[in-house]
């Protein structure tokens, strides 16, 4: 079984976001980078499938040259190779990103049986790149999957809608987008990390497009409160908290 996982390098912020002076981007000088938990789950699912069924796992990303870090980190988990579609670091809009991913997928000799995506990207969360890729490749797609079994060329998928689980079946080759909680991604082993340094990453330069969803400015969403009123320290503050709970009607 040949599996491809698409992932995106994103900055990982802590308690707040700082913006660049022109407010067009997040200030990343002091931040580390990673990928979405959804995409970590996708890589873990791919590694498990190849462990069980044989085949190959390839990673594909469109981003700045530094996205090599994210590819190497995931290669250390078990993927065999990476493809990096290098941009100048600007955000590409969903249609342009999907078109570049589709070109790269079509250029591959391997006809992937399964292409995995995150349900939505961590930063821009457009909820669409995978669906556009599915349409362009003429493949069926199941989104938001939190349970997946593959047998006899069919993917049996489950997704949660409130307390109910929807069940889907989808013939391969297919595209599946997964959610955090599908599995618990493993940590890379030391040998895994060492091997990852030597695994092949193919670099390509896709042609940029004019964005049709054009990002202009970012703002930090305002907090609903002006900060917590500290009721006190330790158990001594419990009576004050009980009073608060009574006032807001939480004690029934």
């Amino acid at each position: 079984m040949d599996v491809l996982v698409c992932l995106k390098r994103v900055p990982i912020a802590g308690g707040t976001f700082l913006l660049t002076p022109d407010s067009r981007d997040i200030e990343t000088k002091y931040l580390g980078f990673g990928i979405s938990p959804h995409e970590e789950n996708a890589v873990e699912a791919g590694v498990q499938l190849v462990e069980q069924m044989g085949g190959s796992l390839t990673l594909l990303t469109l981003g700045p040259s530094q996205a090599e870090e994210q590819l190497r980190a995931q290669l250390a988990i078990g993927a065999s190779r990476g493809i990096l579609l290098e941009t100048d670091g600007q955000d590409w809009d969903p249609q342009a990103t999907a078109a570049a991913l589709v070109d790269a997928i079509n250029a591959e000799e391997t006809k992937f049986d399964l292409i995995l995506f995150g349900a939505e990207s961590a930063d821009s969360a457009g909820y669409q790149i995978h669906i556009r890729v599915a349409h362009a490749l003429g493949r069926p797609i199941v989104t938001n999957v939190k349970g997946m079994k593959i047998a006899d060329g069919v993917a049996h998928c489950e997704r949660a809608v409130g307390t109910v689980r929807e069940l889907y079946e989808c013939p391969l080759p297919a595209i599946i987008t997964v959610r955090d909680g599908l599995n618990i991604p493993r940590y890379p082993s030391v040998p895994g990390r060492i091997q990852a340094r030597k695994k092949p990453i193919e670099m390509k330069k896709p042609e940029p497009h004019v964005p049709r969803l054009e990002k202009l400015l970012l703002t930090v969403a305002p907090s609903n409160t002006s900060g917590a009123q500290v009721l006190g320290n330790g158990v001594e503050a419990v009576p004050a908290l009980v009073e608060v709970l009574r006032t807001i009607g939480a004690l029934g």
Partner: protein
Amino acid sequence: MILVLLDHDRGELDQLSLRALTAARKLSDDVQAVVIGEHGESLAVVAGEYGASILHVASHEGLADYTPTASGRALSQLVTELKPVAVLAAGSPRGNEQLAHLAAFLDLPMAAECSSITLSTSPGAPHSVTRARWGASLLEDAYVHSELLIATVLTFSVEPAPIAGATAATVKTFLPNLEASDLLVRVLGRGGEATTTRVTLADAKVIVSGGRGVGGPEGFAILEELADLLGGTIGCSRVVTSSGWRPHAEQVGQTGTKVAPDLYIAAGISGAMQHIAGCKNSKTIVVINTDPEAPILAYADYAIIGDLHKVIPALSAAIREAKV
């Protein structure tokens, strides 16, 4: 005209769709709704109540149950016929998914999870939207370069508002042309409800949520006791689920569940943006944390600085006393 997709499950309306209808009414007096799948016509009354004059009902045997690609196809045909200026849906997994299929069929841009929309005022000029990034921790102003605006509405950005004395929408049936490939993916069945005596996260009025500070799976016993006393349920941070301490269904945050209870008690949770994204719409947030500098304090209403392993049992005891 603005066309709004009403999402439903076998005739039961997804209430978030009413927010999309309300958002549409703020943009235009001419709002129509569309519903796809069996039992859709039963939504004519509520569609009218929230401002739609016409309810278009897609009729096709392939559309009996939820099938997102076919929905997108049916929508694309209706849109080509009616030529609305915008198609809106709820910013829910299904709303986002169906409109993404629509956008892919028409090869047009789509703006997901918009908190505000300003329609283009002159031909050729873009539409303007403000949309959520990072679980709505950041807002993005963007242009949508397309005559037809395809957008979903950020859940908590608009309150559903009915119109007093409105009449039911007029039902108009349309017959989409579907291809076999549109119907490859559809709901084949449904799994049972999760077995728990507690309410679900999305419905809970009170959530007692634990993070790394709880220390391990056993530590949640005192949180469960408190949750039961308050008639609430358990939530947690991602550190907790990725350590396997609690099931993922309990994770609150950007990649977990977004909640809006009356009371959210965050114990041993630092307050990363990705966690805040899931709980910031709570009415009251109470923090129990050993660290007076924890970022979560900036988003909370009340805090006790202290060890949750001492504070929570004392709190439960005091609540028991206060209740008798």
